[in-house]
Every structure is written in structure tokens, then in C-alpha cells.
């Protein structure tokens, strides 16, 4: 069962994209068309707010936010 952080991320992705978030944690949010170049900064801002963190410029790499699994990896590494 996905944990609450995963569900929180799914909700954020849905809010930003206006579409249901993928069940597959490894699905590319960009290649699936869920996030475009303008939705990505919105998602990063939403993650900062939801998890009370500040994503520094050095971490602004789209690959870190390309799937739920990658976002979780990023959050775990902080």
C-alpha cells in the first residue's frame, strides 16, 4: 500500500496538472503529458509548501521530479 507521502504527492500532481496522478510510481510525469514545462515549477513550489522545504537552485533538475518515485527519492535524500 502506498504510504501517506505517496498519496500526498499524487494529490499535488493532480492539483497542478488537473489530471489524475499515475498509479505507477515510475511513470514519467513529462512523457505521459501530465506535466509540461510550466506545470513543473508549479509542482516544485507545491512540494516546497506541502513538505515545508526549500528546493535550492542546485536541485532544480527536471529529472529529480520526473516520477513519483524520483520525487520520493529526492525527498528522502534531504
Amino acid at each position, binding site marked *: 500500500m502506498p504510504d501517506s507521502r505517496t498519496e500526498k504527492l499524487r494529490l499535488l500532481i493532480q492539483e497542478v496538472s488537473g489530471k489524475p496522478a499515475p498509479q505507477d510510481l515510475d511513470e514519467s510525469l*513529462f512523457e505521459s503529458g501530465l506535466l509540461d*514545462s*510550466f506545470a*513543473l*515549477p*508549479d509542482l*516544485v*513550489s507545491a512540494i516546497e509548501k506541502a513538505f515545508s522545504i526549500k528546493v535550492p*537552485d542546485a536541485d*532544480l*533538475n*527536471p529529472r529529480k521530479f520526473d516520477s513519483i518515485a524520483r520525487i520520493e527519492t529526492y525527498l528522502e535524500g534531504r
Partner: protein
Amino acid sequence: MSAYLHGFGRYLPERIVGNAELAARLGKTEEWIETASGIRERRYAADGESVADMAVLAAQDCLRRTPATIGLLIVSSGSGAVGFPGPAAEVAHRLGLESTPAIDVPVASAGSVFALALAMRLTEAHGDILVVASEKMSGLIGDDPNTAILFGDGAGAALISTRPGPWKLVDAVLHSDGQYRGDLVFDGTLRMNGLNVILHASRKMPAVMQELLERNQLAASQVGAFLVHQANLNLLTRVAKTLEVDREKFFSNIARYGNTSSASMLIAASEWAEGTPASGPIVFCGFGAGFHWGAVLATGA
């Protein structure tokens, strides 16, 4: 010694290229282009019309409004046809400047904010400084819809002097980070990593403006007008939202001219100054290839 902004000028080529024309060529719809960029039309220079041609016309427009004895010419362009010399030499010659120093700032979209910041600091040594930004982006674009829909051609100009003028240049912040130099590049082909460019622009533009405002004890809400690089309307909307200011404070003419790279900020400033400029401080801001980004603060003199 203080630096003052005396006025602006601009030149836009005659040919209007609407979304319908581009949509047909790129296999997209007019609606898609406008939704993705906020652009309805842009101008393309004529085949024989060069970066220097447009720069001279914008410079002359500026000098008609604000006569000056030019002590330094700075020309910003990332789209000149010749490797060297850059367009500054030709523009200086055609403006009748025979021994006045003329330098190029070839950093593309952030070029005019860099040039403005340099002029602010160099006017004490050189007197009146004419900054011109001119771009012929139509000569660089290919068939990639993500870039082809954005760019247009044009030129803008500004005059900076130690002589008191309408706006006082107060402070400037400039940044560069070359690790992203491959994300927006023209090396025979125009390539843009849109995800990374937009991600960084949407964060770095508000951040540099905040940095500039905070060190001058100003809040974004106190700014009268934001005159920024017209990259994409969606980007300007997000930047305004991040700064928590009304989007209307961001002057925008991108719907009519598209993204004219470094020229866009000064073309926007020129149109803004012709209208009814709001009172309060002005913030200029640019971001572009490199990445280079920066902001300049001006106040009513």
C-alpha cells in the same frame, strides 16, 4: 555620481507573422500557440534587414526623444550574422560615431539588462551611454514548434547619463551560471531544453528581483512597474504570482511582438514610457541563455 535613465526607443519590422501562418507551417493550431505562449503575432525582419539595421533605427528613435552626446555605445545581440566584429562597430559607424568606444554584449535574452547595469556603472567614466538591443531571431529558428512559435525580431534602445533625467538608476544585480549553457543554445541550430529553461527562469527571475528589492529596503508591492524580458506570457504570470504582485504591474506586449530576446525588455520599456507610466520604483529584469540573469532598479528622479 548618479546615473539616470533619460528615455527609450524602439524599432519593429513591418512584416507581421500571425499564429495562423506559423500554425500551418508547424502543424499546430493557432489556439495551441497562444495558450503555450500568450503570443498572437510577431514581427519578422525583411530578408536584407540586419541586426545592425534595426539597431540603428531604434537608436535613432531613442536619440530623437532624448538628444545626447554619446560617450559609449553598448549593443546587445545574440543573433548577429557575423562572428566578429559584432554589430556595435557598424551601429556606431552608421550613427556617425567615429572614435567613440562601442562594445558588444552577446549574451542573448539577458543582454539588455546586463547592458543597462553596465551603463549604470560606466556612465561616470564615459558620459552619455546609448544601450541598444537588437535581435533577428527569425534567422535562427527552424521547424521545432517549441521555439519557432516564440521568437520575433526587433530592437530597443535606452539612454543613460550622469545628467539628471526622469529616472534614477539605483542598483543592479547580475548573475551567471554556465553549467546550464547547453540548455538554450544556437550553434547553427536553435535548441532549447524547455523544461529546464522554464524551471530556472520561473525561480531565478523572482529571486533576483527579491534580492535587489530587499537590499534596497523595498517590497515588491511598492514597485510601480516591472519591465522584464518578454519571454512567454505564462512565465510572466508565474513570476508575478511568486512575487505576490498584480500581473498588470508587469508590462507586456508579447502578444504583439513575441519574444524578441534581449530587445524585448527595451521595446517594452519604450512602449511603457509612452503610455502613462505608474509612479513608484521600476524593476527591469532579464533571464536567458547561459544562464545569465539579472535585475536593475530605477526610481523617479
